[in-house]
């Protein structure tokens, strides 16, 4: 069992170490996301302050929306931005044939690599954002713009669990993007479709709770909610009891479904693989 897992753990470790080397990129991402967060918070504050009666009936208060914005900025690296860039290079050069020579299960191999890369990009950025939005801003007297801590300890634990499921979900989407790259021979197309969907449907652009009431159920059930919105709801403490179980259940169900789809698609893609270059 342990021996069987060794190559996958090695792939994970190698990828994690490579990604963690890019400190300047992490710092740049951090500054960009702080900037983004500040712009968004000013816009939300203007909307909330302008309309007192509408703000009173809004499903999220202003400070909850502000916290939501910071969590989303901190976990931006969790989004399935693109396929694995090394796989894209391998497809372009034809080196993807080497992947077939390894005595491993390719889906798990790619999935471990994707998980490690997302995690390696996520951890430094998330820590920096939490430090900035949770500590620096309140100390600077900007408490109204700050990230507030989770509602309670159990909520924090559920948030962590939900983020981990989001990580698995994101990795399984990245593997699907790898497969699309293998099929279309270009990495650009797949991510051009998935990234915008992920940004809006995860709540990154706008908290899902602020969408019209009629589409709420649909929004909570779709897979991308698990990449950000559901973890945020746990942090804010708005999911309890049955709804909490439902949220975690929907995340698990989508991970299982995307894994099965990914494995089947990978089998088909390898069955009729085109190698370009030479």
């Amino acid at each position, binding site marked *: 069992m342990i021996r069987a897992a060794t190559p996958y753990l090695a792939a994970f470790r190698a990828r994690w170490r490579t990604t963690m080397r890019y400190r300047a990129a992490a710092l740049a991402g951090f500054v960009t996301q702080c900037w983004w967060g*500040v712009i968004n918070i000013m816009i939300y504050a203007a909307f909330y302050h302008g309309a007192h009666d509408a703000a009173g009936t809004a499903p999220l208060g202003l400070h909850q929306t502000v916290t939501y914005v910071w969590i989303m900025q901190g976990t931006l690296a969790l989004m399935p931005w693109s396929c694995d860039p090394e796989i894209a290079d391998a497809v372009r050069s034809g080196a993807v044939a080497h992947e077939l020579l390894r005595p491993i299960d390719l889906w798990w191999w790619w999935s471990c690599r994707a998980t490690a890369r997302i995690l390696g990009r996520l951890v430094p950025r998330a820590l920096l954002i939490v430090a900035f939005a949770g500590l620096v801003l309140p100390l600077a007297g900007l408490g109204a713009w700050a990230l507030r801590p989770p509602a309670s300890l159990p909520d924090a634990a559920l948030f962590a669990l939900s983020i981990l499921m989001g990580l698995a979900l994101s990795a399984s989407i990245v593997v699907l993007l790898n497969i699309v790259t293998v099929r279309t021979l270009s990495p650009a197309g797949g991510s051009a479709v998935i990234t915008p969907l992920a940004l809006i449907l995860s709540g990154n652009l706008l908290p899902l709770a602020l969408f019209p009431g009629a589409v709420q159920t649909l929004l909570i059930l779709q897979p991308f909610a698990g990449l950000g919105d559901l973890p945020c709801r746990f942090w804010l403490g708005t999911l309890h009891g049955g709804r909490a179980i439902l949220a975690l259940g929907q995340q698990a169900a989508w991970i299982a479904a995307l894994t099965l789809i990914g494995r089947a698609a990978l089998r088909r893609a390898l069955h009729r693989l085109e190698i370009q270059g030479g």
Partner: protein
Amino acid sequence: MNGFALWRRYARASLSGQMRYPGAFLMQMAGHLATTLMGFAAIWVLFHRFGTVRGWTVGQVALFYGLVNIQFALTETIGYGFERFGDDFLRTGAFDRLLLRPRWTVLQLLGHQFRLRPLARLAQGAAILALGLALTPVRPLPFTLPMMLWAIAGGVAFFLGVLIGQAALSFRTIESLEIVNVLTYGGVEAGQYPFDLYARWFRRLMTYAIPLGAVSYEPMLAIMGRSPHPMAATLAPAAGFAFLAIMLLYWQVAVRRHASTGS
């Protein structure tokens, strides 16, 4: 061959290159159109819930949104060479080849790629602008049309200036500086809303130090007939050209100091 004819030839070569992978290209266009449309959908949802923001209606915000997206989309079609400069030209040493050719480096980089993908953003920007014009009363056409074109020109100059500045900075870092995204993508994000929603320090920074407000917010106020200083607002897009000129000077200085990476 004059500079413009040469640039057109560059553009043709780049267009046929992009059509080599039609499947990926179509998905890219569809995705890009979806991204940008969703940006406005999010604004629509906010207005649906809150009604107005500081007295602005959704139609007025559509005007700001459309303008800044058109400006940035046009810049992206021609400015990609600068956006990718650090990674694709400096680190690889490809820039040394450009220096050997008897043409201005800026012209060659403008011709590096004529991208079709931003046309999706352009299309939706134009559509949202048209929606805004249908919903909002503006000044008569003989003023609005030239003013709009002047503002677009100023905006393209501004965003191109940002990309050229990014490229010039990368002579120091030997990689494309993602931090400049706060002015490109972040600029589009900020320019989509009227500037009076923002804190005063932010508004001043983004109007006087970095003339985004001068090429988007101020001219659009003039078009709506709401500007407190109509004359200044009419002239404001010139700040975009001044910004571009400064960045071009900076570029020239940086190129003169360039020492190859040697790879």
